[in-house]
């Protein structure tokens, strides 16, 4: 399977007005989105996950500085001029499924008006009404549902509308930012299934979520898994292998905190991302897990990678 979007060394800093301090939202994040596969990016809330999606689409506010590369084919999203982003990338090649679907829809306009408008702008020549109904069907909505206003849609239906909106431009890459937040369990599973179908349709999907439990429940939901902590990817690799044999203490602790893992809370608290010192962030929180090699280095082996594995651990 070819890589749709190759992200390497993505670093995001926010300048804060006071005392020139900076928020280390993301540091040296690298991953590939391959067509037909879903990469699940998990981590506790506030670890900088959502910033990635906005960074890739260059939707961050003025005080953000983004470095690194994000190659969509030969186009580097982080360096491309604004009008290229606007005219060719957003919605057309890389689409975003926004976090809370309810607030992502303009409240005073019906879902159909917004869907048909997006089709009309992104797919000139297509029949807006027809394509909108087809998209609705694809995401499991009745055409009639589209004629409602956002506040008249249930959480699940709103979620599906925003997925339809993301698919309107037939994008190569779909970034889903916490698509299951706030939904009850059956709706979570159904949303993950929907994203699975999107990937099976040949698109590359990035699934940003904190709901590790859902991934365990539906192993088919994600092909690859990346674990993020304090703005850094601590472990990446095939989902099934990482979940079965996590290589990094943090992944183990995360799994341990789940009901299936015995509800052992992760000790300490996630660090503040403001003026985060370099070096291994997690082991500062877990000194008892034994000294790590301190290096902020990524060790790869095959298609798995971990950052700063504990000292003396097995070969990578």
């Amino acid at each position, binding site marked *: 399977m070819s890589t749709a979007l190759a992200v390497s060394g993505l670093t995001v800093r926010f300048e804060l007005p006071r005392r020139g301090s900076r928020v280390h939202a993301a540091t040296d994040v690298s991953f590939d989105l391959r067509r037909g596969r879903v990469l699940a990016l998990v981590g506790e809330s506030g670890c900088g996950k959502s910033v990635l999606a906005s960074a890739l689409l260059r939707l961050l506010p003025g005080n953000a500085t983004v470095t690194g590369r994000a190659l969509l084919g030969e186009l580097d999203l982080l360096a491309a001029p604004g009008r290229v982003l606007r005219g060719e990338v957003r919605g057309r090649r890389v689409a975003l499924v926004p976090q809370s679907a309810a607030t992502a829809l303009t409240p*005073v*306009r*019906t879902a159909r008006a917004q869907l048909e408008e997006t089709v009309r702008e992104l797919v000139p020549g297509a029949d807006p009404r027809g394509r909108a109904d087809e998209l609705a069907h694809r995401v499991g909505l009745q055409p009639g549902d589209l004629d409602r206003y956002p506040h008249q849609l249930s959480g699940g239906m709103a979620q599906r509308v925003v997925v339809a909106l993301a698919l309107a431009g037939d994008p190569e890459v779909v970034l889903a930012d916490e698509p299951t937040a706030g939904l009850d369990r059956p709706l979570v599973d159904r949303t993950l299934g929907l994203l699975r179908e999107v990937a099976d349709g040949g698109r590359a999907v990035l699934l940003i979520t904190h709901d590790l439990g859902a991934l365990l429940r539906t192993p088919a939901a994600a092909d690859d898994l990346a674990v993020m902590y304090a703005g850094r990817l601590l472990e990446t690799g095939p989902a099934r292998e990482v979940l079965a044999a996590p290589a990094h203490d943090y992944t183990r602790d995360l799994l341990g905190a789940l009901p299936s893992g015995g509800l052992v809370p992760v000790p300490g608290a996630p660090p503040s991302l403001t003026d985060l010192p370099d070096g291994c962030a997690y082991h500062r929180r877990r000194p008892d897990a034994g000294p790590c090699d301190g290096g902020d280095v990524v060790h790869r082996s095959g298609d798995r990678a971990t950052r700063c594995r504990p000292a003396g651990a097995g070969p990578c």
Partner: protein
Amino acid sequence: MPRSVRAPSARRAAALVAVALLAGACTAPGSGGEEAGEDARRLVLADAYEPEPLNPVAGHGETGYSKVYDGLVRLAGGPGMPELEPALAEEVPQPDADARTWTVLLRDDVTFSDGTSFGPEDVVATYRAVLDPASASPIAGNFAMVESVRPVGERTVVFRLAYPYAAFPVKLLLGIAPSEALATPGPAEESELNTRPVGTGPFVLAERRGDRSVYRANPDHWDGAPEVEELVVEHVPDDNTRAQRMAAGEFDGTTLPPLLAGTFADREGMTVVGHESADYRSVSLPAGSPVTGDPAVRRALNHAVDRDAMVRSILGGRGEPAFTPVPEVFGEHHDPGAVFAHDPDRARRLLDEDGWVPGPDGVRVREGVRAEFTLMYFPEETLRRDLAQAFASDALAVGVEVDLEAVDRPQFRPRIPVDAGLLGGGDVPYDPDTQLYNGLHSVYTREGVGGPFDNPSDHVDPAVDAALDAGRRSLDPQERVAAYRTVQQRFVADPPAVMLAFLEHVYVMRDAGWAGQEPVLEPHSHGVSWGPWWNLREWRWEG
């Protein structure tokens, strides 16, 4: 607004404004009709004064200026004191031996504009309506001397007076209304005549809406139909607005304060017309107050005031200094010797001799009393405000402090006996009696006699009273001249007020091929009913 809000794109916004304009335009009531264009036989005037109710009983046309009504007599044009010429009367009535019974023979070829006939019953009805308490007519006081008025035969009316009154013909200028309209007694304010007048006059009110009145020539007027076919009078209260619109050529004429009118002097196609008047401005000096009642202060103030400067810079030269209420235009009734020289030093000497010692702040004091008094003026009249300020400034120069206070009519009235007031006068200037009697006679100092403006200073001078009564009752012209000269001599000897100036009423007229304008002596209250247009019925079109 449609259910789903479509934001107003620029294109739609422009449409929105256009619609509002159109909607506005087509709601404009009144006939679209063809553009009136510059119709030659038509005059459009701008008046400063409110369109008053056109009802003689309510005081309209008391000095014969009405376009819609005719009086028994009317003013004859020409410089100086106008003569009275017969109008609805065959000739100017003469009194009988004791000047208490006046018989008026009426014309028999006159009809009202609504076709009804004109006769003695209309004259009697009008005067009785004025005197009838039920009409609550504001001018009832001016006709107090009329005991009775009754019709005699087909064409005569006899007035019976309470006392001999030589100047009675002046009272016959009053417009005559049809008896049918005055049949039911009731407040003049609510009479139909106010807005739908019926008169015998040269013009008929064709339309009155809001600020505009339109008069049309009365084709069968007994004195011949006027050549001016239509007169439009628009009420534009604000002096500046009138001047702007006159400058923009919107009007054929208007009345303006002297300085504003001056700006039209060198504008081609426009003429600035001044009409002499007996309209004076003066400062009353209440006898009751220790400062204004003191004869020395009164004489000093009369010398302190620089009347020439006021006429030159406030009136723009449009007027004459006034020393007594009798202007030069009154001919031999005027006493050229009765004057006050502008002499601040003499004023200061008078005050020093009278014991008014200048205090630390320059204001004089006598026995603990400061030489200070309040001068009231009507705020909306800029001319009175400027004269009041100039008077206060001149008085301060000789050590008398004058505190100005803008007071409105309701509050003005009760304070007249106490505080000085910047007053106007000369309501009926066509006989020395009507010009002087109410202003100076001490009968009005008694409670309940006449209004507050009758003898505002509450001045009592037996010699003046005697002279005024002699002037009123005597029929011998020489006796009257001697009497009124005595009044002026006494006025200068012991002035009850500081007379400032007689105003020249100023109008601006667009040259439009009309001839027949004549000067006339104008009363205190004026407007475009006076000015060059007072004898509009006699204008001739020379094209």
